[in-house]
C-alpha cells in the first residue's frame, strides 16, 4: 500500500522543520520493536535470572546437590514428598528445607534443579557458538569464493544437512560415550561436539545465501570500486549485514541443543551424573527426568520439577527467538 512508506522526509536545509521524528538506527529500531514484545521481554528477563542462578548455584541452593552422607541421608530420607504434601509416612512428609522433596538416593530435588540450570545453559550456548562459528565461516567462504570451492563446500554441506540429527547424536554418544573423550567433564565435551556437528549446515546455507545476494549490492560494488581488499569487504561490509539472520538462527539453535541434551541424558547416553559432593555439574534435567520417571508413583515432583524447568527454559528461548526474528525482520510487520 502506498501510504506512509513513500513519503519519508529526507532532511535538507529548508526542510529540517518537517523532520519531527528522530531518525532511527537499524539496531535501535530492532531493539525498540523487541522491547514492545511482552512475551520476548519476559523471556529475556527469565533467562537472565537463570544465568545468575547457574553462576551462583552454590550459594543459592538450600542443600548440597550431591548424594548425601549417612547422617544427611537419615535427615533427608528418600522419596520425600514436596514441602506442601503430607504423607502417611512421617519420614516422607514434606519439609520446607527440601522444597521439592528428595529422590531415590536422598538428593534434594530443588538444589539439583538449580545445578541442572548450569548444564542446560552451557549445552545451549557452547554448541550454539561452535555451530555459528563453523556455519558462518563455511557460508562466508562458500558464498564469497564461488567456483569449485563453493561447489565442494556445498556438496559436503548438503550431505551433512540431510543427516538425521537425533539419530546421529545417538550414534555419536553411543560410540564415544565410553572413551576418554566421552568421559571428559562428565561427558560435556563430547556433548558439545555432538550437538555442533550437524546443525552448522543450515547456518552455512543461510549465510551463503545472504552473502550471494549481498555480493551484488551496490555498496559492495562501491567498496570494490574504491579498492577495498576482498577480506575487508567480507568482514567490514558483508558480515555485518548478515548478522540479523545469524542472531535469529542462533537463538533457535540454543533450545534445540538443550532439548537434544535432555533427550540424550534421558536415554542415559548424555551427561554422566557426578556423585562427588563438590561437582560443578552434578546432574542435568534430562537425567533427573529419567530418574524421576522411575519414581512416578511415589514422588511425582521428582519428575514434574525437571520437566517443568526444561519446558520453561525452552519456551523462553523460543519466544525470545521469535521476538528477535520479528524485530530484526521488519517485513513480518
Amino acid at each position, binding site marked *: 500500500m502506498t501510504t506512509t512508506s513513500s513519503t519519508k522526509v529526507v532532511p535538507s536545509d529548508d526542510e529540517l522543520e518537517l523532520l519531527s521524528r528522530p531518525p532511527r538506527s537499524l539496531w535501535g529500531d530492532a531493539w525498540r520493536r523487541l522491547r514492545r514484545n511482552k*512475551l520476548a521481554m519476559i523471556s529475556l528477563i527469565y533467562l537472565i535470572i537463570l544465568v545468575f542462578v547457574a553462576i551462583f548455584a552454590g550459594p543459592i541452593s538450600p542443600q548440597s546437590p550431591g548424594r548425601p552422607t549417612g547422617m544427611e541421608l537419615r535427615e533427608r530420607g528418600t522419596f520425600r514428598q514436596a514441602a506442601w504434601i503430607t504423607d502417611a509416612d512421617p519420614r516422607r512428609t514434606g519439609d520446607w528445607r527440601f522444597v521439592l522433596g528428595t529422590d531415590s538416593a536422598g538428593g534434594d530435588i530443588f538444589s539439583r534443579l538449580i545445578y541442572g540450570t548450569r548444564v542446560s545453559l552451557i549445552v545451549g550456548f557452547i554448541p550454539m557458538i561452535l555451530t555459528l562459528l563453523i556455519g558462518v565461516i563455511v557460508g562466508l567462504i562458500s558464498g564469497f569464493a564461488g567456483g569449485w570451492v563453493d561447489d565442494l563446500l556445498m556438496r559436503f554441506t548438503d*550431505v551433512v544437512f*540431510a*543427516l*538425521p540429527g*537425533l*539419530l*546421529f547424536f*545417538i*550414534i*555419536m554418544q*553411543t*560410540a*564415544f560415550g*565410553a*572413551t576418554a573423550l566421552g568421559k571428559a567433564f562428565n561427558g560435556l565435551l563430547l556433548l558439545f561436539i555432538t550437538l555442533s556437528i550437524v546443525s552448522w549446515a543450515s547456518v552455512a546455507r543461510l549465510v551463503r545465501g545472504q552473502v550471494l545476494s549481498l555480493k551484488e549490492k551496490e555498496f559492495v560494488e562501491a567498496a570494490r570500486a574504491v579498492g577495498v581488499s576482498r577480506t575487508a569487504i567480507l568482514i567490514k561490509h558483508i558480515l555485518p549485514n548478515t548478522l540479523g539472520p545469524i542472531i535469529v538462527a542462533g537463538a533457535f539453535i540454543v*533450545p534445540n541443543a538443550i*532439548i537434544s541434551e*535432555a*533427550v540424550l541424558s*534421558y*536415554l*542415559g*547416553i548424555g551427561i554422566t551424573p557426578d556423585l562427588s559432593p563438590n561437582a560443578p555439574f552434578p546432574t542435568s534435567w534430562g537425567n533427573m*527426568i529419567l530418574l*524421576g*520417571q522411575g519414581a*512416578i*508413583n511415589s514422588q*511425582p515432583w521428582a*519428575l*514434574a520439577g525437571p*520437566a517443568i524447568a*526444561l*519446558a520453561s527454559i*525452552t*519456551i523462553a*528461548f*523460543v*519466544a525470545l527467538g*521469535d521476538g528477535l526474528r520479528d524485530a530484526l525482520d521488519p517485513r*513480518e510487520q
Partner: protein
Amino acid sequence: MFGYFIRRVLAIIPVLVVVAFVTFAMMKATKGGPFDANEKLSATTLKALNAKFGLNKPVWINTEGFSEAKAESSNPLHWVRGFLDSQFGNFAINALKGDFGPTYQSRGSETVQEVIARRFPVSLRLGLMATIFALIVGIPLGIMSALRQNTFLDYLSLVISTIGISVPSFVVGVLVVLLLSRVLNIKPIQPPEAWNGFGRAYIVPGIVLGLGTMAYVTRLTRSSMLEVKRQDYVRTAQAKGIASMVIIGRHMLRNALIPVVTILGPALANLITGSFIIESIFRVNGLGQEFVTAIQVRDYAMIMGTTLFFAALIALANVLVDLTYGFLDPRIRAKK
C-alpha cells in the same frame, strides 16, 4: 518431471553412503566387541559368535588373500577384493541387498530386517496418528489466527503453538503420563496387544507425539496465510466481488498451504523416526522402543540397520515433498 525425480532419488545415495560409513566407523571406534561385556560366555563361544557375525575379519581391508609377493598387493583388484571381504564391505553389500544381518541380542536367531518388518508398522501407525492430529488441528488453528490477526484467538493460538514448539515431546509425554495416572486415575500404559490394530490406544501417544508438529504447522499456516492475505491477487479476487469464504478457500488456501506441504514429508519422517522416546514412555512396542533397547545393550547391528533405514526414509520423504511441491505450484512444475 520424471528425470527430475530420478535425479533426486539418485542424490539420496551419497547421503546413505556417508551415513553408513560414519555409523560404521563410529561403531568400530568403540573398544571391544558386542559380546565382550557378557562374562558368562566362554572364550570358545565368544570366538564362535564373532566368527558367525564376521567380526573376526578386518574392519576395512581384508589382506588375508594377499600373497607374500609385493607385486600382488599393488594389484588394485586385490584391494577391491580385500575391501569386499572386510567387515564394512560385507555390511555395505548386504545392506544394499536389504540385509542388515542378524541382531546381536537375538544371537542370530532374528535378522535386523525381520525386526524392522515386525515393529515398523506400529511406529508407522503412531506417526500417521500424530501427523493426522497435527494437520487437522494445526491448519485450521493457523488459518483462524491469521484471519483474526491480533485478536484474543490469535494470541491464544500463539501461546499454544509457542508452548507446543518449545516443549520437547518427551517432557509432554512424562507430564501426560503423570497427569493421567495421578490426577485422572486413568491407566496411561496400554498392554502390548493393544498396538496390533490401528485402535484407540494410539490416540494419547499420537497426540503427544504430534504436538510439536501441530504447533509448527499452526505457525507456518498462520504466517503463510498472512503473507498470502497481502498478495495482489487476493485484492483482485475481492475486486471481482467474490465472497470472502470463497476467496479463502479458492484463492488463498492453495497458495498458503504450499509451504505447509513442504514440511509434511520431513515431519512425517521425523514423527516416525523421532517416536522412540514416546514409544518407550507409553510402552508402544514399535521400532523406536526396539531402537532404544538396542542403544542400551549396544546392539550395533540393530543400531546401524535402523539408522540406515530411518535415514533412507527421511531422504525419501524429502524427495516426495519436492514432487508434491511441484504438483501444487505450477510455476515450479514448469521449471523442472
